[in-house]
């Protein structure tokens, strides 16, 4: 294998267009191949048993703990008479055996009736997911961008400058990231970038929410996708676009920090591992510049573990959004699920688990496809 000896990489290249074109062609070939189509279909079909498993587990757990009727009564609501409680029991088949109840549940699920979200004003669960999922998706994507855009370069720097001050600094940075609870970090960020800046009359970042209430009142947004930044752009509502973007900075960073730290550590170790390989020595001995060696030869191979973790992290970010959304009062699916858990709102909890499971599986599928793109030696089949 002979690499072109120009001083560029796939990331910082002077003739990017050629590299990009080559990569796009490869990706196109990959996607259009019959083998790949079969692979994707098989993977999608494999999701069915997993989803059944998830639904069984959540259903069983939610029904064996305590009195299932409590799922339909909140802890504030203690004023129900015995007759009313009996009526609830009958309406929800709670006096039937568990497997019969499961049958009712799964058949409703297939008919698109995911139940009623009591924590969301008795709206259908499907509708609640449609309402809250875009906010979380937006937040998660921004976090992913933060985590990757900062984590990977920092990890590379840390590996390349091993045992230098830069390396020590990034190791402290990542150690703090993996050990600091996200809600604590969130509160610190709010305190520093919202409160302290605000009381000193400096421009500050908002403490929470998706958009400022007054900006929203003055510039009502026509919601299309539910992603406010995208909707702001496509409807030409730039006030909302900017405001939504600014509102994503603190929660996005707070949510990304743990995974950023993981990426740094992962990138650093795999980079160090790869840099010890013979082909790197060969590349250096050919007189290639250090940048070419690092970015062109080492990075791709070192990326594989990070991509694996990134796929898992995407699911983790969705789940991590639970705390971040609560602290930043971000109206996403995580916050909705927290209120559902607090009120034992089983239908919502199950809807949340199912949707997280689906996203998790899709993220992993995408990761597997990315493997083949990053390292052509990996063949799907």
């Amino acid at each position, binding site marked *: 294998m002979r690499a072109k000896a120009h001083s560029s990489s796939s990331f910082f290249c002077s003739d990017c267009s050629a590299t990009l074109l080559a990569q796009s062609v490869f990706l196109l070939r990959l996607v259009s191949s019959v083998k790949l189509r079969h692979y994707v279909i098989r993977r999608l079909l494999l999701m069915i048993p997993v989803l059944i498993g998830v639904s069984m587990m959540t259903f069983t757990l939610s029904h064996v703990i305590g009195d299932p009727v409590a799922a339909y009564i909140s802890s504030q609501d203690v004023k129900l008479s015995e007759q009313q*409680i009996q009526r609830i029991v009958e309406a929800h088949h709670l006096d039937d055996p568990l497997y019969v109840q499961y049958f009712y549940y799964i058949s409703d699920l297939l008919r698109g009736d995911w139940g009623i979200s009591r924590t969301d004003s008795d709206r259908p669960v499907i509708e609640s997911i449609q309402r809250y999922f875009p906010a979380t998706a937006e937040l998660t994507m921004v976090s992913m961008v933060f985590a990757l855009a900062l984590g990977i370069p920092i990890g590379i720097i840390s590996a390349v400058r091993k045992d230098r001050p830069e390396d020590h600094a990034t190791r402290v940075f990542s150690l703090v990231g993996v050990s600091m609870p996200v809600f604590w970090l969130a509160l610190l960020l709010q305190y520093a970038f919202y409160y302290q800046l605000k009381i000193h009359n400096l421009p500050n970042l908002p403490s929470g929410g998706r958009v400022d209430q007054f900006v929203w009142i003055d510039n009502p947004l026509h919601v299309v996708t539910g992603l406010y930044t995208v909707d702001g752009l496509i409807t030409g509502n730039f006030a909302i676009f900017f405001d939504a973007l600014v509102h994503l900075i603190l929660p996005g960073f707070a949510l990304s920090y743990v995974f950023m730290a993981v990426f740094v550590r992962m990138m650093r170790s795999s980079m160090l591992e790869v840099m010890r390989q013979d082909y790197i020595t060969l590349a250096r001995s050919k007189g290639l510049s250090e940048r070419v060696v690092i970015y062109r030869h080492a990075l791709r191979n070192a990326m594989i573990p990070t991509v694996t973790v990134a796929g898992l992290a995407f699911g983790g970010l969705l789940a991590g959004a639970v705390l971040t959304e609560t602290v930043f009062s971000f109206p996403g699916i995580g916050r909705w699920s927290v209120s559902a858990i607090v009120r034992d709102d089983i239908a919502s909890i199950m809807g949340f688990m199912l949707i997280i499971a689906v996203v998790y599986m899709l993220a992993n599928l995408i990761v597997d496809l990315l493997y083949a793109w990053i390292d052509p030696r990996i063949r799907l089949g």
Partner: protein
Amino acid sequence: MSEKKTSGTSKKTLAALVIIVIIVIAGVGGYYYMYLPSTRPLVPNPDTLVHTTFGDVDKMDPAVAYDTASGQIIELTMETLVYYKLPGASTEIAPKLAKSWDVSPDGKVYTFHLDETAKFNDGSPVTAEDVKYSIDRAVLIGDPDGPAPILLIHILGAADYLYCEDCWQNTNQAAVDAYLNAGGVKVIDPLTVQITLDAAYAPFLSTMAYSVASVVNKDLVEANGGLTPGFYNEWMNQHATEVGTGPFKLVEWTPKQRVVVERNENYWGTPAKLARVIVNEVDEVGTRELALFAGDADVITLPATNLFDVIDKDKWLSNKEVVPIKPGLSVSMDPTYTVSPNFGLNTKWKDPVTGAMPLDNKDFRYGMSYAFDYKTFIDTVVNGAAIQGVGPIPPGMFGYNEELVKSLQFSYSPDKAKEYFLKAKAAGAYSDGQTITLYYNTGNEARRRGCLLLKDSVAALGVGLTLEVQELDWPTFLAKTRARELPIFFIGWAPDFADPDDYVPVFANGEIGTFARRQGFNNPEINAKVDEAAIESDPAKRKALYDEVTTWLFQEAYTIWVGVPLNIHVARDWVKGWFYNPMFAGPDIVPAAYGMYKEERTDQVAITIEPLALVIAATVVPTLPNYARKGA
């Protein structure tokens, strides 16, 4: 590694860094110059009250809404025939949509005369037909989890319908006809409506002040889904508060974010001073506090556990003096109508090993009531934001007899506790080594600490009795209290209407009372007195009956009356005209309907980005030469 190879790229890196920094600064600077003014008023948005709280609105339809978040929006936007005498803490009934009313001598027929000037915010007048439709609708929807079964049950024919077995999630036409034919609510003329009760019921007017009796516009409801008995009207659940008779109207409800109401410019009464009230949903209390301190929130909801973030601890605990510790705050503490928390003792509990029934012994129960350290609980667990429990009727309500309660209240006395426990032991109520478990629901920190307090003080007595503390998740807690399996558990009650009949039966009537039944006692004589008090129209006689029941409850000590919480109101001092009324679902914002406003101050605070630019420059600029040197 070859150093010289990096020199070319370092320049590029530097250039890239400079470009990134320029883009970021330009973006941020541009944003702030475009969207932020150069100064901001000291009192932001003087015509808008921002209330930052937790908990989302459940349903906007007054016929079915039964939670505080929904209740407060309904109280701002809709009105009932009668309401409380405001402003102030009074629960005396005063005219609202009805300018006057007559009561028949037998106390069963109420005739309301509507105010002819009353109108909805769409301009249509309020008619007797609307009133009849509103009340019939609340009964006929008949949500078993809603307020109707508690509050409208006394209307002629309503009880049969509301307790009917198959009237929920099902339209039972026979039951509907039976209710309508009973004629509980009748239109006499366009401005007169008559409500007949199945029996005289003294607190009826108080029940009519609850939001369930809010008047809706019949034409509007009929145009948007109408009434299907036994089912919710989904349109009303989302939009009911957009068209009401109240001083505000709903303009936006974004779940898990905010509710916005704006002044009803068409209001038939005295218009509100505030143009807009925004209720923001922020679950994290720290975030709410920061918003208040920064001036972005005018009023916040603060739990008692965080009380000393805003007021001086020593002054409050020693002299009950409320002194804010941050400038610009205004804090008030007022007794509520909530009777909670209390320990309910289950007299029918049997020790599974020894078969002893210690809680059935009155001396044992006295020992428990004397063993609880009320003052320590109130001062340390709830930071003084409560008063000691006063029995079933909260202070300030009709029927509350302070003198009597003071003479009956237990106080913490280890000596007396020991004496009574030993007496109970001598009588065979329990033997040495007896263990009883105290239960609370997971997540309730105040209750957990209350249990530990009781456990420790009983352990210190050395009477051969050990208390253990056990948490249960809510479903299990509920299941076990219903099944009467728990010996000692927490109980509490919040108001539906301002009358002891909402409270006393719950705690005292062993036939129907939610807690009395779970505590396993039933005294027919007392039940009769409770029933009699409900319909007695002579206030003196009524009061005497409640005195008897209260005395009996204290003397039997079935319940350890721990506390009545105080309402904590935390606002910026520019919020003026606020007052407390214990019947408000949302005491922080409902006064906006009765003249609350924000003081306008002319002071402006300059916002400048120069200091920020200086900070960035001071940090970034000195490092640039290093990069440049390395690059070269």
